[in-house]
């Protein structure tokens, strides 16, 4: 018998555990102080319930059968389970509702070595608050939480998940082009994008838009984000965000603003999230909502990388 553990999982020993704890405590304190109560939900859910939230069950890959033959799945994020909790346990409670969580989630390894199969997330869900007020609260709290763990140079990328889709309709781009275009965009293949639109009269805009990123000056085409920028200015964190009109998130439930978290010491995003105004309705309680999840092991890597640079 081999004593190995599945690739992409890990044992955490005391030294790492202590550092990881310190990070989650700092983040938890920030979230709790802001009125976000911590919740925990089962690691296993009915697959059918996860699918109600998102058609691919938000990427849940590990399934098994229970005694009745029902399909159980290991959750791949906490957003869908919390939406379920709100619709069931908080069915009559007046919004807004604020929750935070620190929990593992599981996804398949799709891109090769080094990718985690099991990862630890710390996140926020703000339910019943409309964008952009809700979005501004989530963004500024995320910045504050990372301040609390000692990061100084972190930034939040903000995009609009529906922007490109809307633009394709507004510009009357033929339907059969939409999928290839959106695929290029999510693959971050700007060369392919340019090729797909090369014969369209509106090609310049379609190519230019996804590479617009920076301050409020890039928001001419994204009215929806302008109000968010003003609110972030009031909260004194406008200089910590980068508006990015090419930002796309993979999960299908996002309906508005989408977020990604960066630190210059590491080349990968530390987490992400966005607005999902239609998700709660699928569980029977129609409420606007938004949230964000930080990958705590990645935050830990960023903290270590910043220390190494200092």
């Amino acid at each position: 018998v081999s004593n190995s553990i599945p690739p992409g999982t890990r044992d955490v020993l005391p030294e790492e555990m202590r550092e990881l704890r310190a990070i989650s405590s700092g983040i938890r304190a920030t979230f709790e102080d802001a009125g976000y109560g911590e919740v925990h939900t089962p690691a296993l859910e009915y697959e059918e319930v996860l699918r109600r939230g998102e058609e691919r069950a938000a990427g849940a890959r590990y399934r098994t059968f229970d005694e009745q033959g029902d399909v159980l799945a290991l959750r791949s994020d906490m957003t869908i389970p919390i939406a379920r909790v709100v619709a069931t346990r908080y069915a009559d409670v007046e919004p807004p509702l604020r929750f935070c969580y620190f929990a593992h989630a599981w996804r398949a390894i799709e891109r090769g070595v080094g990718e985690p199969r099991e990862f630890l997330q710390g996140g926020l869900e703000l339910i019943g608050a409309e964008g952009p007020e809700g979005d501004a609260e989530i963004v500024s709290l995320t910045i504050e939480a990372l301040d609390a763990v000692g990061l100084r140079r972190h930034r939040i990328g903000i995009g609009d998940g529906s922007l490109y889709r809307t633009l394709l309709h507004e510009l009357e781009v033929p339907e059969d082009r939409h999928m290839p275009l959106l695929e290029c965009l999510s693959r971050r293949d700007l060369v392919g994008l340019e090729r797909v639109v090369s014969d369209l009269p509106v090609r310049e805009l379609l190519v230019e838009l996804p590479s617009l990123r920076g301050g409020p000056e890039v928001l001419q085409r994204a009215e929806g984000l302008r109000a968010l920028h003003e609110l972030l200015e009031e909260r004194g964190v406008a200089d910590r965000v980068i508006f990015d009109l090419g930002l796309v998130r993979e999960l299908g439930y996002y309906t508005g603003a989408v977020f990604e978290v960066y630190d210059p010491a590491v080349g990968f995003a530390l987490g992400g999230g966005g607005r999902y105004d239609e998700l709660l309705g699928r569980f029977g309680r129609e409420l606007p909502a938004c949230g964000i999840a930080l990958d705590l092991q990645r935050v830990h890597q960023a903290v270590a990388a910043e220390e190494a640079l200092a």
Partner: protein
Amino acid sequence: VKLTIAVPRGALFGGTLDLLDTLGIDTAEVRSNDRKLLFADAGIVTMRPSDVPTYVEHGSADIGITGKDVLLEQSQRNVYELLDLRYGRCRMVVAAGAGDPIGSALRRLGRVRIATKYPRVAARHFADTGRQAEIVEVKGSVELAPLTGLVDGIVDLTATGRTLEENGLRVVEEIGECTARLIANPVAHKLKAEQIDRVVERIRSG
């Protein structure tokens, strides 16, 4: 803030250094020293083309240059493909010896054996065209594999077709054209947006 650039050694090396010259980056030391790998002053790291996406994805380099063949093979990499640089033009092809060894294997045995350095590209091409293929990954000269009877055909990159010809092989199918591409790390693409856009602008206008 300076950009760190991953530069491919090998066939794209010369063209890439010429391009960097036009961007005002001093490549003299890189040209004169082919053992050194990291040139901190110029912000250049040199490596095999197939390693470029690895360094860029990780953020050890902000941007990099590599062939489309490498990107097709490593399509799971989380990097931005920003520009077609148009040099290093090659074709990804299926090649085989005299007669029709691939067609004959498919007719008689229902599957074909293919040697390649690009197992994913090859597998995808045969799957997309509805043919059973057994992919044999080799590291060295692929042209040898069909000559020794190891496989029925190969998938490889060819510029002029000379090497294929000299080994008695000919192109039987074209999979696609490959040129050098500019890629970027997704975080650097946001946090160093100005510098990266300046490079893109300069290349586009130059």
